[in-house]
Structures are given as structure tokens and as C-alpha cells.
């Protein structure tokens, strides 16, 4: 049984939890009558009553109808945009937003009269891309693809909108996040290699303890701390 399996078994102990009623009563007993426990269970109990349940369902239906109604009205342009953005947000990954940023940026110069809207769209796409960048790419090819795309956006920005500060900032943020992601990936690969090498080395008890801490950091995806511990133990 390796350490990971033992830790997984230890995590089973998380199932042990105190009774909620006891938790409430104990706090009341300690703090005395001044203590006020905010209990929402009563609200949910009320909602289970048939009359409130019907009310809740009706309300939800009305909201859904309103949503569809609004989506079909062309004059509600901005609201439609907001709602459809919210609805679509979960469907697209960073690739979509990188591509969108790149395309809208390309149009900035070719359709000058729409610049303001396009700049805004590019900025939003860049923001979304930053949000959705993976913390860990699936493989080196994916990392390379992201770096290439970010470079492409940066180049377009330099040529097409070199003075737009908001766009420059948004691109800078994307670049920073990408850099961070790549650095993390490099640390991870280095830590994995070091851990594999250390498995075959004879270590003192203190070194072994440090190695286990490094493994724990590695499992928590804190690769920099893991690397620090590995360096510490190899210097001992």
C-alpha cells in the first residue's frame, strides 16, 4: 500500500461529523441566552407546504417564460446579450475565447466604425480566456497551442490596436496567466522526475520525512513547495 492509498483511506475519516442539533445546542449552552442561531431549516419546511410549493413552481415557470420572451424580442438588445452570454458561458472553453479574441481583434481595423463594440468584445473574450485557461494542460502539444495563440493575439494587438490601453492590459493579463501555467507545468515535470529519482536513493530518516512532505505538496499540486523540499533534502 503506497502513501497515496493510505491518505485516501485516512480521508474516509472525514465522514465522521457531529450531530447538527448537538452543534447548535452546545453553542447555545456556552454563549447563553444572548446567542442567536440563524436557522434556515424553517424556511425550507414552509416551502414544502403545498401552497408554497405551487407558488415556487409558478414563479420558476414565469421566470423561464420571461427569459424566452426576452430572448425573442430584438429590441432588448443589451439584455439579450447579457442573458445569452450567461447561458453560453458554460458551453465554451478557453479555445473558443482565444479564437474569438483573435478574430474580433482582426476586425478592429477593417471595420473602423464598429471599433468600440469590437474592442469591447475582444476585451471580454480575453477576460473569459484568462478565466478558462486550464490550470494544467492535457499535454505539451496543448501548452504549445495556447502559447502560439497568445503570441498571435499579441502580434495582432501590436499591429492593429497598439494604443488601446484596455486591450493591452487584457492581453498582458492573458500572457501572465499563460506564463504562470507553463511555469507550473515545468515545475510539475521537474518534481515528477526528481521524485522518481529519489525513490531509488537511500535516504536518512529526515530526508525521507522531507520527501513525504514533498509528495504531499505534489499531490496538492503545490509544485513549487514540493521542489523546494526536494532541493532541501538533496542538499542535506
Amino acid at each position: 500500500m503506497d502513501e497515496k492509498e493510505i491518505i485516501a483511506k485516512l480521508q474516509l475519516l472525514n465522514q465522521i461529523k457531529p450531530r447538527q442539533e448537538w452543534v447548535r445546542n452546545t453553542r447555545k449552552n456556552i454563549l447563553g441566552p444572548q446567542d442567536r442561531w440563524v436557522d434556515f431549516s424553517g424556511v425550507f419546511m414552509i416551502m414544502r407546504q403545498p401552497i408554497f410549493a405551487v407558488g415556487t413552481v409558478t414563479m420558476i415557470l414565469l421566470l423561464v417564460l420571461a427569459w424566452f420572451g426576452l430572448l425573442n424580442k430584438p429590441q432588448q438588445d443589451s439584455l439579450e446579450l447579457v442573458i445569452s452570454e450567461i447561458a453560453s458561458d458554460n458551453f465554451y472553453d478557453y479555445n473558443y475565447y482565444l479564437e474569438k479574441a483573435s478574430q474580433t481583434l482582426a476586425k478592429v481595423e477593417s471595420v473602423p466604425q464598429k471599433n468600440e463594440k469590437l474592442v469591447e468584445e475582444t476585451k471580454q473574450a480575453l477576460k473569459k480566456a484568462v478565466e478558462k485557461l486550464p490550470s494544467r494542460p492535457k499535454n505539451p502539444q496543448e501548452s504549445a497551442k495556447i502559447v502560439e495563440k497568445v503570441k498571435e493575439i499579441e502580434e495582432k494587438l501590436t499591429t492593429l490596436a497598439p494604443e488601446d490601453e484596455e486591450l493591452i492590459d487584457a492581453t498582458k493579463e492573458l500572457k501572465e496567466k499563460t506564463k504562470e501555467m507553463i511555469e507550473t507545468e515545468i515545475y510539475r515535470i521537474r518534481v515528477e522526475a526528481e521524485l522518481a529519482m529519489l525513490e531509488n536513493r537511500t535516504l536518512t530518516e529526515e530526508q525521507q520525512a522531507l520527501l513525504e512532505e514533498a509528495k504531499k505538496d505534489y499531490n496538492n499540486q503545490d509544485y513549487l513547495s514540493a521542489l523546494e523540499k526536494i532541493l532541501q533534502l538533496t542538499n542535506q
Partner: protein
Amino acid sequence: MNMAKNLHFHFKKIYKLHIGKIYRFIYIKVNSQQIAEDLTSEVFLRFWKALQKENPSKIENPKAFLYKTARNLIIDHYRTYSQKKEIPIEEVKEIKDTSQSLETQESLSSDLEIVQKAIRQLKEEYQDVVLWYYLDNLSVQEIAEILGKSENAVRVMIHRAMEKLRELLKEV
């Protein structure tokens, strides 16, 4: 009035944050809901009294205070047991179980019970460090502060405790 309000607020915050963990820590070690509830209540009562006596800022590390108090109460609890030798019948069974070899515990139905039994077979300090480090995510520094030991000593203890736990779980 404001001071009292602040104390209440501070206590509630700490209580909410740690009640589950302190209860779990005690429960794993005493293996009785009733005793775990009593001891956990006592831990937080002492914390509340300490808060009232001292300025909250003087209790620099509430987490360390809670775990230290819990640890001392568990030790006192077992000390009282061994002196009185009057143990409720259901708890006699629970305590007896902890001294059994894992090989004899084939009847244990769940992994959870097996882990609990294995933990209880570790010596006291090993139990503490494993639970604090791997379950409650305390740092080596925090554990060192609670136990009054050096960080290196704590690292070695964690390593040895895990080795022992590995042996115990292998026997299952």
C-alpha cells in the same frame, strides 16, 4: 457592550470553523459519540472562558489552543478511566477492540472502521500527528507548536507514524 459583541462574534467564527474537526479528532480517539460530545463541549467552553479572561488577540493561535485543550482532555479522560476502572459496558467493548490485532477483526464491515482501528493502534503522539497533518491539514509548524517540539522532530514523527500505519493496514 461592543466588547461583548466582539467576543461573541469571534467565538462564533472559531466555533463554526473548528467544531467539526475537533469533534472528529476526539471521536476517533475515544470511539464514543457521548464522550466525544462531552469533551468537545468542554474544549469550546474552556476556549470561551479563555476568551473572556484574555483579550482575543492574546490567544494568538485559536486552532493550537483548541487542539492542545482537546489533547489534554483526552489524556485526562483516559487517566480517569484507568483510575476508576468503572467503565460502561459498551465502552469496555470499544476499548478492548483497540488492543486487538487487525487480523482478528475480519468482521469489520467498512473501510472506515478499519482505518479507525488502525489509527487507534498507533501510539498517542503518532495518532495526533497523522490526524492533524493528513486529515486536518495542519502544517508541520502548527503541529510543532502544539506539541512543543521542533519542526524536524515533527517531520520524523509523521514519517514514522505513516510507516507504522502502513504496516497495520497491510495486515488487514
